[in-house]
């Protein structure tokens, strides 16, 4: 009896120790970024030194804000990410809803196409878009970059939303039809409220994907539309010497702050969004 209990205690400890170890590995890189951003860093310093904030300063943040056009990159990131979210929702919510209303071959064909598009490597789209945008006069513009983002968001969002709409029971709309609702009314007032949390989850994921996106920006942003992810690599040249490294860390902290806040506060939505489709066919 006693041994069984001790064994149980032992398991609890082992499980928590392993989870704790994994937590340290998961969070070490962002924690080190925060530590480095708040220390005076003329040269590379040891991690313990940084984590104890021996040389605390917020100087790096002032530098990150004032040098290297932070607000320019920030504005581009905000505009592109929020427009991507709005357009993706406006386009994909009706599209996915409609897909659950048609039946048979047509639905299968469109769903298959949408799923297949999710497999396309980004570079396959980015390279031709580079030349297409030069032809259309869209190179180095926010609109061009936004269109590129939409080419990955729309298939992703449609696929995810179909999963959410499929969970809405048919009886709900049938009741609406009996009451004589218009198609638009059925969509807007009957079905959409049921999948509201799914739509919020999608909006958050699309925002995070756009905010984090780098490859399209590198290919297509030119000099006028660069987001924060391109902005940060501008500093990297000076970083190897160690000189700019506190500033890069401060800059990096500013870049990841919004997405990490999402991860911590809207965690419930992200979880439901990421597990959607895991079990459906």
């Amino acid at each position, binding site marked *: 009896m006693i041994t069984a209990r001790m064994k149980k205690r032992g398991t609890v400890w082992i499980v928590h120790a392993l989870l704790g170890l994994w937590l340290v590995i998961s969070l070490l890189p*962002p924690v080190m970024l925060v530590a480095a951003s708040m220390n005076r860093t003329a040269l590379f310093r040891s*991690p313990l030194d940084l984590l104890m904030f021996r040389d605390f300063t917020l100087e790096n943040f002032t530098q990150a804000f004032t040098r290297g056009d932070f607000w320019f990159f920030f504005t581009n990131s905000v505009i592109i990410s929020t427009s991507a979210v709005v357009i993706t929702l406006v386009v994909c919510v009706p599209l996915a809803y409609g897909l659950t209303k048609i039946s048979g071959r047509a639905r299968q064909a469109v769903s298959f196409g949408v799923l297949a598009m999710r497999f396309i490597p980004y570079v396959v789209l980015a*390279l031709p878009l580079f030349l297409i945008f030069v032809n259309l006069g869209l190179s180095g513009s926010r609109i061009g970059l936004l269109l590129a983002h939409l080419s990955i968001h729309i298939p992703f969002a449609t696929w995810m939303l179909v999963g959410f709409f499929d969970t809405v029971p048919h009886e709900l709309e049938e009741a609406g039809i009996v009451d004589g609702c218009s198609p638009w009314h059925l969509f807007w007032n009957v079905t959409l409220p049921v999948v509201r949390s799914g739509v919020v989850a999608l909006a958050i994921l699309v925002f995070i994907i756009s905010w984090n996106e780098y490859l399209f920006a590198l290919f297509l942003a030119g000099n006028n539309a660069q987001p924060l992810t391109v902005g940060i690599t501008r500093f990297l040249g000076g970083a190897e010497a160690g000189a700019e490294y506190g500033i890069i860390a401060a800059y990096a902290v500013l870049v990841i702050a919004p997405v990490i806040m999402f991860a911590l506060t809207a965690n419930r939505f992200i979880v439901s969004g990421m597990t959607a489709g*895991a079990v459906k066919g």
Partner: protein
Amino acid sequence: MAASRRDKFTRGWWFILPGLLLMVAIVGTPLFMGFRYSLHDVFLYSFRSQNFVGLENYRRAFADPLYMNSLRITAIFTIGCLVISVGMGILVAFLLNARQVKFRSMWMALFLIPFVMTPVVGGIAWRFFIWQQEVGVLNQVLTFFGGPAPYWLLDRDTALWATIITNSWHLIPLATLVFYAALTTIPDELHEAGRVDGAGPFQALWYIVLPMLRPHILFVSIIIITSAFREFDMIWALTGGGPGRSTTVLSIFAYNRGIANQDMGMANTIAFTMFIIMAVVAWLYITVYRKTLGDKA
């Protein structure tokens, strides 16, 4: 009856058409143009003069040892990320699902951070603070125990594995999340039955958990394969494709050919071979997935 069916039909299509047309335009145009460019000689700063060369670019690519090298590196990178992420994902999910663990949603929220963290920034953080030769955490720990202090990212033999581990760090939360969600649906009675039959935690993992997780493993695998196969950001921030060409995956190789060497025809050819590989993977996945679900039902 017939009228209501037609109503249903048109009702759906009115919602679908605008989005569908936009999607086809926005994805179909670059896809078609990319294929077209791959059949031509196209150079970046004189791209208006395009000579049709047929499949010559493809022949050149397959004869190019650098292309084959990139293909091999991409394969190692993808499979490495797949194995590590799925393995660690199951392990962490299994630990998190242990009966004694409390505050599970808090653990999960914190575990998610590497997944949402901007990959470029993640790459920079690992490069400066983990892999860095002198003050990186890894070498600090190694030298504390009297071990060596290698130049992880500057050595051809270790750079690829360092990028694989870093990218797995980014992908594991996704696997953990899906597996954890699946594990919570396994009824307690099943574990109870296992315990009565004298199964330890590892037997439970092998005989109860893994078979239940099969469709989820397939689902996670395909997402990880798709994501790792096209990965660019993380590797670019860590090594830029070097040292030498030891981490030049196909995405980076295509970028180098198209933008740095200005050979857009070749770059699009490389990209299009990636597209074909993923098309095969997609086809395999859809067939296998239907089969798995089929014999489950």
